[in-house]
């Protein structure tokens, strides 16, 4: 991947004295059940400035934007626009107030032209002269220097161009505050630079821009101000030119302080259960490491640096190149051809509801999902025994509600994760792939998951992929830091200096 070089055309201008913020959030709190997604957030957004919101997945960025976009009201606190407290009852109110949002998934009609899409759903006369329409949209694009043909059909456009159409839609509505939710995720590097130029131009013309991302270098290159969001709170807010180093930013994003501790007794280390040798491809470059029975190896890094591809290559969701992945000392293909339901590999995915469980089915069926071969005799399935074992697991792991007929969607996040963990450990795995195993869980559930994983070292080696640095430090024997598809370092947690080294590596800084 070529290194991105962003050259900012103008330097950050100081805000004129006495400039009033366009939008102010004042002690805004939003809860979903027991989980606090946004915890008394206070934030000011000024005209003509680009504000980046930096945070890991699940830090509360999307919730905050949804509050601004009027998708749901805050539980506490107020949102002020031009100093007036606002109460949005729908996203329409937010649009009227001048807030526009570009979502990750574009909302465009593929078979229509750019101009038609821009004018779609706008107030005005019912009949519009196509020529007039093209001209208006063309002029608008020119004003902001957006290079796009108003007569082009959406289906012919690249992702980057489609994004420009989304921006044009907002500009046409005269939105003053433009929110971008991870806009570069779908773009090529060239398109990203083009987008940035467009954003700078818009901010020069007085628009306020909120840019949500977890990519450090983009945020540093683009923004005037950066706010870091972590666990639903604003962790820090500063001007971009006040940043001392990228690694400082990275560690502030993932956090340093120890929130929770477990007592990790060393376990006996035995034979390797996972070996990766010179794995290149799938967006990864020369990955080498191994996991032995009795140890935990953690993979950390800012999301989107190749962790997903690595997991998919190991768990069988996609095929790695020949002779790169060895599980239980067998090449990948041989392992999956011979793999049995138990004493093998198990995968605890991040997407518990979508991947690891059957939403609309009960606990017994969910136990059977990966263990069914252990309950079958010929073509038949022994459901009686499955029910008995489900009940035993529910008791052992205290999964609530404690009924075997509860459906998966009725379980809270923590209980669902416990159920997945119970099922996967029931298979007596030799290799466990745990992906963000405690994301979104409360403290007690996190502790429970951690101690179960540590206990499982008696039978298995564990590959832990996590965005939570503390989790990695608490559980792992070794921590591998991933950056742009590479492993930049394999650090032992027994070393006192390891915590300090992780931040710079996550930002891609090697000394």
């Amino acid at each position, binding site marked *: 991947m070529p290194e991105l070089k962003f050259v900012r055309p103008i330097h950050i201008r100081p805000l004129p004295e006495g400039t009033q913020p366009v939008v102010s959030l004042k002690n805004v709190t939003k809860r979903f059940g027991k989980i606090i997604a946004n915890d008394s957030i206070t934030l000011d957004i000024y005209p003509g400035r680009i504000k980046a919101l930096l945070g890991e997945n699940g830090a509360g960025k999307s919730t905050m934007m949804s509050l601004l976009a009027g998708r749901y009201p805050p539980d506490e606190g107020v949102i002020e626009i031009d100093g007036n407290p606002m109460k949005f009852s729908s996203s329409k109110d937010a649009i009227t107030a001048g807030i526009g949002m570009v979502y990750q998934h574009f909302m465009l009609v593929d078979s229509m032209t750019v101009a038609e899409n821009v004018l779609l759903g706008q107030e005005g006369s019912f009949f519009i002269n196509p020529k007039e329409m093209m001209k208006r949209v063309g002029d608008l694009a020119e004003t902001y220097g957006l290079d796009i043909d108003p007569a082009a059909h959406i289906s012919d456009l690249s992702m980057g161009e489609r994004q420009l159409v989304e921006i044009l839609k907002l500009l046409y509505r005269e939105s003053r505050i433009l929110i971008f939710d991870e806009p570069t995720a779908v773009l090529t590097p060239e398109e990203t630079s083009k987008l940035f130029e467009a954003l700078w131009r818009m901010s020069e013309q007085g628009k306020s821009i909120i840019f949500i991302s977890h990519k450090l270098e983009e945020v540093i290159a683009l923004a005037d101000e950066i706010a870091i969001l972590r666990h639903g709170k604003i962790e820090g807010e500063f001007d971009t030119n006040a940043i001392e180093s990228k690694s400082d930013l990275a560690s502030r994003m993932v956090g340093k302080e120890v929130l929770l501790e477990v007592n990790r007794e060393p376990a006996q280390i035995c034979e390797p259960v996972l070996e990766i040798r010179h794995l290149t491809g799938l967006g990864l470059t020369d990955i080498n490491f191994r996991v032995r029975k009795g140890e935990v190896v953690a993979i950390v890094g800012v999301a989107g640096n190749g962790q997903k591809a690595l997991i998919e290559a190991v*768990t*069988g*969701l996609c095929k790695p190149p020949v002779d790169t992945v060895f599980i239980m000392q067998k090449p990948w293909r041989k392992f999956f051809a011979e*793999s049995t339901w138990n004493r093998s590999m198990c*995968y605890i*995915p991040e997407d518990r509801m*979508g*991947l*690891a469980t*059957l*939403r609309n*089915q009960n606990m017994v*069926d969910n136990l*059977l*999902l*990966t263990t*069914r*071969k252990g309950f*079958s005799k010929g*073509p*038949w*399935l022994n*459901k009686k025994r499955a029910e008995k074992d489900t009940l035993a697991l529910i008791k052992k792991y205290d999964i609530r509600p404690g009924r075997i007929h509860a*459906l998966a969607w*009725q379980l809270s996040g923590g209980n669902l994760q416990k159920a997945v963990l119970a099922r996967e450990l029931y298979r007596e795995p030799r290799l466990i792939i745990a992906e963000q195993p405690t994301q979104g869980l409360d403290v007690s559930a996190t502790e429970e998951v951690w101690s179960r994983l540590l206990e499982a070292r008696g039978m298995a080696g564990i590959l832990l992929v996590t965005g939570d640095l503390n989790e990695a430090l608490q559980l792992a024997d070794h921590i591998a830091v991933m950056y742009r598809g590479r492993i930049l370092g394999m650090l032992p947690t027994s070393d006192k200096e390891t915590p300090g080294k992780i931040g710079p590596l996550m930002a891609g800084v090697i000394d």
Partner: protein
Amino acid sequence: MPLKIRKRDDPWKWGALVVFLGALLFSLAISGLLLAGQGKDALEGLYVLWQGSFGNLWALEGALLKAIPLFLCSLGVAIAFRMQIWNIGAEGQFALGAIGATWMALLFPDLPGIILLPLMFVMAFLFGGFWAFIPAFLKLKLRVNEIISTLMLNYIAILLLDFLVFGVWKDPASFGFPMTPEFTSGAVIPHIGESRVHWGILFCTVVGIGLWAFMRYTRLGFELQASGQGSRVAKYAKIRYGMLVMLVMTLSGGFAGWAGCVETSAVLNRLQPSLMVGYGYTAIVVAWLARLEPLNIAFASFLLAALRVGVENLQLELQIPASFGVIMEGMILLTVLAGQFFLTYKLERKHRS
């Protein structure tokens, strides 16, 4: 009074039944209004409808007869839907089943029923199954959307049936009407005693129970239901998704094929274009009404069959347009589906906090 929508914490125990009956009542009420709009007496109309579908033995027999092919087609459609494979092609698979059965009946007219009938059923299953296998194969290998391909194959199947009865299979003694010769007695499923109902109903019962047991007690049945969550979950659970798609579509088509076989053999006693009255499409309505459960499918197919018979009566007695039945069918489906909202959500009075 302001109301608030809230997600249910626990499933509503009798919800499905309440919603179904409520929706039925609602659509009957609307039907009454439609009747009134045409200047008919709404209450009388509903009474005639009742009389025509459940009011006497003749009507009940008629409903039962129509319920048989509907039930088989619907079972087939439902197992495919369970896996979220959208088989809209029961109509065509039904036609192919009828063709397969007719082929055997015409090829071996002199065989005794005990051999010929099983032969017809096997061939009907194979033909119907093959017709459904084509879209499954195309879906897996070329990513062709199965909704489109199954639907298109319906037209091809009906044209194929026409081609045969207008051509090579036409009865020389039919005075030019497009129909095959009448089947020999060995190729006809006998009636039960003196009634109009035939033994195909026993076959339905066996197939229904068999499928229920298959879904509930076998590993394959479980894998099939689990795959309904999509190919990614299937991959996670190491289920062979592609193989299952082909299997399920073949089964699905085979069941529709059986329906074609039963209808040709027991009701028409020959193959002719009037066989195709849209059971394959109504089966989709039935499957959804029944929430894809075999036992419910039995009830729903009887209900919709009774509705068909009843509307025929209504048509005769009150001179109502034939489309009235289709309107009612659609209305019942829509209200039931809309009503399922209340299974996951409930309305509450808004509290001031």
